[in-house]
């Protein structure tokens, strides 16, 4: 019964966290607030020192973004271990190329640009295709799924990632966009589309900014990709049929199926630990 106790403790802790934290309200000035605070701690002085070759100043600049950049790489490459290595490579490249930082975007956006392109290069280089291993000793499955290459991501690496108000293009809550169902769905998309979807729909960068980061033409709407991500994993379609049944018959079930942001709030009030 270890698993049952564990599940119950997890649900109870989740509810407690939700009750104790204020609701996520995205105000109309979130965009302004975000761009203002994004690099608020990056002083001109630190930047100037880093540019002059002070390694500790560069560490100051980059350290605050390490965790979120590593998570970003994981979302694109699907591997916890590769994300760690790629982050190191990226920061080294950023340090070496600091004189190319023109200050037109924030340091954070500049780092996202480098890290995204490195991740896409790594995927192109590895061409890692999961083998289709149907000949094993396991019983006949209910169905064959399209194989994806994927590792789980430890929660301990999510600590300290600021839960900022996402930008205007965001469709997902930061925390929702780490759920296994979301990551599995992403891996079914071609790499470039994965990057566009994460940059726009999770991090909230505008289409024009994403185009500039990826050096492509302005991406078309990501709505169809986002819908594919939701559909691709039948195991975890939010909300599950069972969860819907346990809710009170109200409009929340339909509205939350269409909007993940509302589903989070709706679910938090109706889950029961028993």
């Amino acid at each position, binding site marked *: 019964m*270890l698993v049952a106790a564990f*599940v119950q403790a997890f649900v109870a802790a989740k509810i407690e966290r939700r009750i104790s934290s204020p609701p996520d309200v995205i105000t109309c000035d979130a965009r302004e607030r975000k761009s203002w605070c994004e690099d608020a701690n990056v002083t001109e002085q630190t930047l100037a020192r880093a540019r002059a070759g002070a390694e500790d100043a560069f560490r100051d600049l980059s350290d605050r973004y390490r965790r979120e950049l590593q998570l970003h790489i994981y979302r694109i490459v699907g591997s916890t271990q590769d994300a760690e290595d790629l982050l190191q490579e990226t920061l080294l490249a950023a340090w070496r190329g600091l004189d190319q930082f023109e200050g037109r975007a924030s340091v954070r956006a500049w780092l996202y640009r480098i890290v995204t392109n490195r991740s896409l290069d790594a995927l192109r280089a590895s061409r890692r295709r999961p083998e289709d291993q149907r000949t094993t000793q*396991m019983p006949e*499955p209910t169905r064959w799924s399209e194989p*994806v290459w994927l590792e789980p991501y430890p929660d301990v690496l999510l600590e300290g990632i600021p839960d900022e108000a996402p930008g205007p293009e965001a469709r997902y809550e930061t925390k929702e966009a*780490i759920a*296994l169902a979301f990551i599995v769905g992403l891996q079914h998309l071609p790499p470039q589309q994965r990057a566009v979807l994460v940059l726009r729909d999770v991090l909230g960068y505008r289409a024009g900014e994403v185009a500039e980061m990826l050096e492509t033409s302005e991406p078309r709407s990501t709505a169809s990709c986002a819908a594919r991500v939701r559909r691709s994993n039948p195991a975890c379609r939010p909300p599950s049929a069972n*969860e819907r049944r346990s809710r009170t018959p109200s409009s929340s079930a339909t509205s939350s199926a269409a909007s993940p942001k509302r589903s989070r709030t709706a679910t938090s009030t109706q889950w*029961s630990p028993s």
Partner: protein
Amino acid sequence: MVALLTDDAWVTMPPLPHAYQGHKAITAFLRGSAARRGAPLRLVATRANGQPALGCYLSVSEAEVAGAYALFVLTLAGDQISAITWFADSSVFPQFGLPRMLR
């Protein structure tokens, strides 16, 4: 564990393409896996992707130690399990702070 599953729960195990749905298929799969392993798994609670997860260790013959075997992540619907995602590669254990061996 099957008792905690929703009726339409899935078991998947990336990168393998096998996907099992429902109590009957999942029970058959779990029984088959247990028979192949020949020894019970020891479980250690952890968290992955914002979800509850369990690191599994398998005892080696009569030895008292159990080695890292696999990690599975639970997707919850309320207080039930709607999906079990099984990762057979235990090389991620250090990132989770999980030991390679259990005594």
